[in-house]
């Protein structure tokens, strides 16, 4: 029974491919995987937009969309029709070809990145030996698309927004990639399948053996989340779009479906990077505790992804936008040294794995946690006092 549900989609694909004539199978297999990824994540995008509008409405004490369909559930459909039927305006002075190509170049690499993500047991489109590198290589192409959009619009706000976006993406790419390196070091592989497999098994017979439960893994996970938020231009790092100062950054001159494609690419990028966080730190499709293994693997992946989406919406509704001069300092002066030091801590964790005396496990955990927390606190204080901002003291006023 478990086998049936767990491998439902894998068997379904095999059945479809098997039913085709011999010559078509080689072509059909990747096409079916691609179609499944496109269908599932495009629908998830529609759903997320609705949840986001509803959730932000709830946070801001207003109902959110509630007119289209029961409780506003058909709002994504209405948005879709609106985006399709809107007039596509291209500025007279724009570089027509690049202006047209930019949304395409933006979406294609984001979709490519999904090829290496394992969504469940045996559910990965391509298992590259260097899968993690492939993911980041695909992500690197997005910067060029942002530049194309900003430059081809021939608008100073567009260009400024694109420059900001590129500066931000390049700066936060470093902590993002370095945060994943600890996991790569300990697993000894860049293949995402191998990384998920390395997190199988349980601590003390019940708690899953995820990397996030190690001190360096937790630190890397937090840094990864911050960098991922900045990388996908989400609030509080949505300066490239900053409506108040740049109108909408590189999106100013886009309307109708081209704008919608940028929007889709941004959200799909967010899902992809969340899926990578799940794969690297949260055990991929493994269940969190031993007793829940009977639920299918893709279900667990979906639950974790939904958790991430809700988390990102919550963050967007809660935190104010970062100031542009703080943005770079935060990446280069704070995140980068911490994430480099975190690699050293990961190495210490690896070399202390053979400790066998009484209390070794606790000592190892506490020691490594202290190795992260002390530099974190010292660095934070040093940066604060240098800018004359701290140290902060709090008093309880009766």
């Amino acid at each position, binding site marked *: 029974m478990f086998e049936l549900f767990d491998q439902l989609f894998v068997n379904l694909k095999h059945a479809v491919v098997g039913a085709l004539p011999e010559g078509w199978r080689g072509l059909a297999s990747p096409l079916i995987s691609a179609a499944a990824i496109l269908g599932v994540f495009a629908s998830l995008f529609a759903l997320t937009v609705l949840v986001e509008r509803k959730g932000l409405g709830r946070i801001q004490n207003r109902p959110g969309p509630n007119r289209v369909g029961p409780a506003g559930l058909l709002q994504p459909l209405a948005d879709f029709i609106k985006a399709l039927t809107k007039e596509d305006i291209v500025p007279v002075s724009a570089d027509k070809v690049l202006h047209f190509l930019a949304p395409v170049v933006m979406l294609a690499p984001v979709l490519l990145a999904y090829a290496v993500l394992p969504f469940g047991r045996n559910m990965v489109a391509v298992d590259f030996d260097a899968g993690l590198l492939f993911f980041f290589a695909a*992500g690197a192409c997005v910067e060029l698309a942002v530049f194309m959009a900003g430059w081809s619009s021939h608008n100073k706000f567009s260009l400024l927004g694109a420059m900001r976006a590129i500066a931000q993406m390049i700066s936060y790419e470093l902590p993002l990639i370095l945060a994943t390196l600890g996991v790569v070091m300990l697993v000894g592989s860049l293949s995402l399948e191998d990384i998920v497999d390395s997190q199988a098994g349980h601590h003390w017979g019940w708690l899953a053996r995820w990397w996030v439960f190690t001190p360096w893994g937790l630190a890397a996970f937090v840094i990864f989340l911050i960098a991922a938020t900045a990388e996908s231009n989400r609030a509080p790092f949505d300066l490239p779009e900053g409506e108040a100062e740049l109108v909408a950054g590189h999106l100013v001159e886009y309307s109708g479906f081209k704008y919608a494609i940028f929007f889709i690419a941004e959200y799909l990028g967010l899902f992809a990077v969340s899926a990578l966080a799940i794969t690297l730190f949260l055990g991929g499709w493994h269940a969190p505790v031993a007793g829940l293994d009977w639920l299918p693997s893709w279900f667990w992946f979906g639950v974790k992804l939904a958790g991430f989406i809700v988390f990102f919406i919550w963050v967007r509704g809660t935190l104010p936008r970062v100031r542009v001069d703080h943005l770079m300092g935060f990446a280069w002066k704070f995140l980068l040294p911490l994430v480099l030091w975190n690699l050293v801590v990961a190495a210490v964790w690896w070399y202390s794995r053979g400790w066998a005396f009484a209390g070794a496990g606790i000592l190892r955990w506490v020691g490594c946690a202290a190795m992260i927390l002390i530099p974190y606190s010292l660095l934070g204080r040093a940066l604060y006092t240098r800018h004359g901002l701290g140290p902060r003291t709090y008093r309880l006023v009766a």
Partner: protein
Amino acid sequence: MNTALLIFATITLAGAAAAMTLRNLIHCALAGAVAFLGLAGLFLGLGAEFVAFGQVLVYVGAVAILIVIAVLLTRPARVAGESPRVEPWLPGVGIGVLVTGALVAMVKASLVARSPEAVSSPAAPVKAIGERLMTTYVLPLEVLGLLLTAALIGAVLLALRDPGEARRP
């Protein structure tokens, strides 16, 4: 020669040709990025995954961006009526012939050209590459790292504000 390699070779050559001939410098830089992508596809077709993804990550993700930003910051992109011709063309042709000759000679002298069967399985796992880099080739790696660090420090020194210089608001 299979079809995929042929397609990627065409993309690379077309991108390189466009990068040399287009009038607008930004278009040239972007065409260069297309050539880099085609080259990555060629590497992938030859089974060198690590090199292919590294190529995209470094050349498309960083070098192409560096080029377009350098172009934007140094000169107006739309120079009216400027032809892509280089005036003293004879030395240029000479250098081109020399570089091409050197590359052809190097490919001819390489292991691939001399005994193709010796390198018939180029699909090196990433792990093997990493181990070689950390053992056999650790000295070149360290030298490269030192060079890049020196370049980084140099760039920071160039960009650093002089002590006497007035602070901009």
